């Protein structure tokens, strides 16, 4: 028996729709035909999946510097992994993986996973909360930023969001975070740039219709926020549900939180969702104690967590490869810090600094970036690993090479110029019209006033110049008029359209101009 089914049954049983007389139950209807013309542009956008290891992952027991092993065995004797249990990597005799990471080791050997050594930032902060904020915003250690790095990228790519979203060009959530809350990573300068879900298979209509206008008071602002969330839940909940139902999974996933989350991500992508960034997370990495089992260091909390990460990523890769869209998807792991070089008294490790990151996918440049950290034999509680790479270099590189953002625009997103790293194959980063579309998404390019109208209405449209087409379709998708067809100068134009011969009802205005197209409903009444 599934808990979800139970809940679904009980809600279904509890609510007799007739009893509520349709109150608040009206679904927004969109004709299938309208959906079709809205989706005729096929995008093959790249997708980034972020895997968050919450709590500070112990890098030195994850990617183990074998040439430092003897020193590690001394300074972190309470957690050291027996040498003969460490997983070897093809072609890299001095680096090994934790024994729970068989699947990730295989991915590495197949060239589908790479390691970046000692990633951190200058002047590390040892507070979980502050360091998490730093990793999510891309701030300097002593700098406070109010937006997330991904939120800033999305704001660059979709500057109109949330006004006019969702729309025909960008119908899907910009980003999706699995879990109940949307993290700072996705906080844009002006709005949260994503959606948090735990199960896309649940849809609940939230919009009731009649509203009071929100007063300009603190309570009014909160009310506006709740309404926006309700609207987004409705708008995006439906598209997520549809994508989820269209999508599928291949291969098997284990029944753990992280695998379940990755499975949902794969299924949404498979279902054609155009969301470009996903975040999944696994907590519990704050292994101050019982990181390992005394007397059996390959068991314990950390081993359990790494096994979940390894199996989750591997199942996900297997799934998306079998389904044939692996080339569009890249993933990365991150954690707010690594752990202390020395082990503590409780078979664990305390907060540390730099630690390795993983990047996975068929398009990664395989191998290991950077060198093994050097372990001092006299390491004490103040000893922390120096960083080799700034985490923001990884972010910058992914934005540039995976999301194909021109170098000139990078500083506006990352706020500084960070080192570029050879992480990923950027060869299919050809300039596309998609970016231009995204930039204008949410703009109103065509409108009619009045609407509803009786016989004629004034139609206003905006063109970027060149060939421009305005068509009118009826609800069955038949073209009933083409009032504008020709070459126009860049700017806003206006014309008077007389519809006398058409029966009353809903029609769709469609503007086409270069890569832009926009569809707006208009209503003719008697």
């Amino acid at each position, binding site marked *: 028996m599934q808990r979800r089914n139970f809940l679904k049954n009980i809600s279904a049983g509890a609510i007799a729709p007739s009893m509520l007389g349709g109150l608040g139950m009206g679904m927004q209807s969109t004709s299938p035909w309208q959906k079709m013309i809205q989706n005729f542009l096929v995008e093959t956008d790249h997708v980034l999946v972020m895997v968050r290891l919450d709590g500070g992952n112990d890098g030195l027991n994850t990617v183990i510097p074998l040439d430092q092993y003897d020193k590690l065995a001394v300074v972190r004797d309470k957690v050291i992994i027996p040498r003969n249990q460490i997983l070897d990597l093809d072609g890299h005799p001095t680096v090994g993986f934790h024994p729970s990471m068989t699947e990730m080791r295989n991915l590495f050997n197949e060239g589908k996973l790479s390691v970046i050594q000692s990633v951190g930032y200058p002047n590390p902060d040892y507070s979980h909360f502050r360091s998490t904020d730093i990793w999510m915003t891309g701030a300097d250690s002593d700098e406070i930023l109010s937006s997330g790095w991904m939120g800033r990228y999305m704001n660059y790519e979709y500057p109109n969001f949330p006004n006019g979203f969702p729309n025909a060009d960008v119908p899907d959530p910009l980003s999706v975070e699995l*879990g109940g809350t949307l993290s700072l990573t996705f906080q844009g300068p*002006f709005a*949260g740039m994503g959606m948090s879900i735990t199960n896309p298979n649940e849809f609940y209509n939230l919009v009731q219709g009649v509203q*009071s206008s929100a007063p300009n008071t603190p309570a009014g602002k909160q009310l506006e926020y709740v309404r926006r969330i309700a609207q987004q839940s409705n708008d995006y909940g439906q598209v997520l549900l549809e994508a989820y139902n269209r999508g599928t999974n291949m291969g098997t996933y284990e029944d753990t939180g992280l695998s379940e989350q990755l499975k949902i991500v794969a299924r949404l992508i498979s279902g054609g969702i155009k969301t470009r960034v996903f975040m999944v997370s696994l907590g519990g990495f704050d292994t101050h104690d019982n990181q390992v089992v005394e007397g059996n260091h390959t068991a314990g909390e950390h081993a359990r967590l790494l096994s979940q990460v390894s199996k989750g990523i591997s199942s996900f890769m297997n799934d998306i490869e079998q389904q044939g869209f692996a080339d569009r998807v890249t993933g990365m792991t991150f954690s707010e810090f690594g752990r202390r070089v020395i082990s503590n008294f409780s078979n664990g490790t305390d907060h540390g600094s730099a630690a390795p990151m993983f990047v996975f996918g068929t398009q990664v440049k395989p191998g290991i970036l950077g060198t093994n950290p050097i372990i001092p034999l006299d390491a004490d509680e103040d000893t922390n690993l120096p960083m080799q790479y700034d985490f923001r270099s990884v972010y910058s590189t992914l934005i540039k090479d995976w999301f194909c953002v021109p170098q000139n625009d990078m500083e506006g997103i990352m706020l500084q110029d960070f080192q570029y790293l050879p992480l990923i194959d950027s060869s299919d980063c050809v300039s596309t019209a998609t970016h231009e579309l995204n930039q204008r998404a949410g703009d109103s390019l065509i409108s009619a006033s009045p609407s509803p109208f009786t016989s004629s209405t004034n139609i206003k449209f905006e063109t970027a110049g060149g060939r421009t087409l305005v068509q009118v379709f009826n609800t069955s998708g038949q073209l009933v008029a083409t009032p504008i067809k020709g070459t126009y100068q860049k700017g806003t134009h206006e014309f008077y359209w007389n519809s006398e011969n058409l029966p009353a009802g809903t029609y769709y205005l469609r503007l086409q101009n270069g890569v832009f197209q926009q569809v707006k409903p208009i209503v003719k009444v008697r």
Partner: protein
Amino acid sequence: MNRRSFLDFFKEKKTKNESSHDFLSKAATLEKGSEKQEAFSIPMRPPIIAGLEPYTGTWGVKQISHLLRRTTFGAKYADVVHFKGKTVAQSVEELLTPSTTPLDLPVNDYNDSDKQDPTVPFGKTFIGAEWDEDIEGTRIWSLKGWWLRRMINQERTIEEKLLLFWHNHLPIQFFDIFRVNWNFEYMQTLRTHSMGDFKAMIKAITIDTAMLFSLNGQQNSKEEPDENYSRELQELFCIGKGPNGKYTEEDVQAIARVLTGWRYLWNDDIVDFVDWAHDTDDKQLSSFYNNAIITGRSGAAGANELDDLLDVIFDNNEVALFICRKIYRFFVYHSIDAETEQNVIEPLAEVFRNSNYQIKPVLDKLFKSAHFFDASNQGAVLKSAVDYQVGLYREFNIPLPPDGELSDTYEITSFMNFYLEEFQQSIGDPPNVAGWPAYYQIPLYDKNWVTTDTLPKRLRLTDIMIINGIPSANYAYPLDVVETARQIPNVEDPNALIANTVEWLYGIEVSAGVKLVLKSILLSGQLTDSYWTVAWVEYISDPTNPMKLETVKSRLVKFYYYLIHLEEFQLS
């Protein structure tokens, strides 16, 4: 499928070291941004002129409900009526008076055909019982259910709300501790001090068994100092990491050494100071603490270093400011502008220091103040999950099964606890040592409660509660809509019912359009007010007539359904 297996399913989900928080993530955060950005992401309010001077304005349903929503869970209408006969000062004083009813102990209400507590008989308390790996998780669920019952059945006192405040401020995770006795003791530690001496509370929590295990005090020794508790004592419990929280990494390390030696002793089942684990060297603190030195003491006297340390920490002005800001954010509004800092936080901190860190005078000053009742502060908070759920129970008079029906009560509270987890606020198990993000994460704060994930879930739960009620094997109580309406003055007049209900239930006005919808529900779309009046009067004159009951009930169900589904209901 049966309900019992459903309950077991999610009970078993939780075993030691398998916390549910894998799936949670820390929510959106930020400190302060540029003005422009804040204008969008943080609702800036116009400065509130009113400060801590006593509130002398209107004392009506609106103000009383505001006070009750913030200091209890939901504004129970009977409480509104009660306080209407008192002054502001009397009301606040009553709310700040602890209940004198002796605390009932949680009991075994979970034994069933598949699960038996090996040592505790059904109906007897498991507090004090021997730890048992197989049943401990069930006992913890039962403790959480007991906690929820106390919230639902609370008397007219702030106690339960304050307990939640302190649990959020000084958190542990019950399923991480996995010993129901220690969890219960921890709750008692907080409850004992919740309105008392904050310094004493910090001392008590520092050497509380659960806290010693939660933040590794148990492993802290002179050979291997563990700085986990030391860091959080400063960062999260006393000083904060704000712009003026300038303690250093060296302070973290030095204070860890001060705290060495406090141990839970397994054989004696007590926490005590053991000098063999204590670092007897002097501990030098930074200039943030005026370069204070905690003089190393040996033998049993080493225990006194904790008092020396707290003296040094509490000498710092930041402590009172930090706690007063936290109280303000929890009870009043999430954002503190310069005026509020100056007119409210600083004088409150002064009250706190002058009373030697007594908590009650601070609350007393705040809740009686003109600032607290300022119109700008009403409705300006988004309901936490507990506010929402427990509030529904209290505002709509939903009973729990009768006393003695232990299994049914356990089933229902387990269901509620499951939902609280879905709403991101599992009592007893906050996501991390900073508590729930909604109480601390700038700039979203309480907006974290209401997301695209949790908002639909809140309303799904509501739907269950409105029509059917959360079910157990033998009971299911839906919202008691008729009894709820009956309390409202002039209930027979649809206009009065609407106006009075909105004033009581919402911290914000609604438009004439919304009132029209509400009225059309009561009148089934007709236009004559007396249709409702007649229906109500007929029901009252013949209350056992099922037809007449159904006539008013079916309309009221839709009426409250609509009110609860409006976004306004999410405001507190």
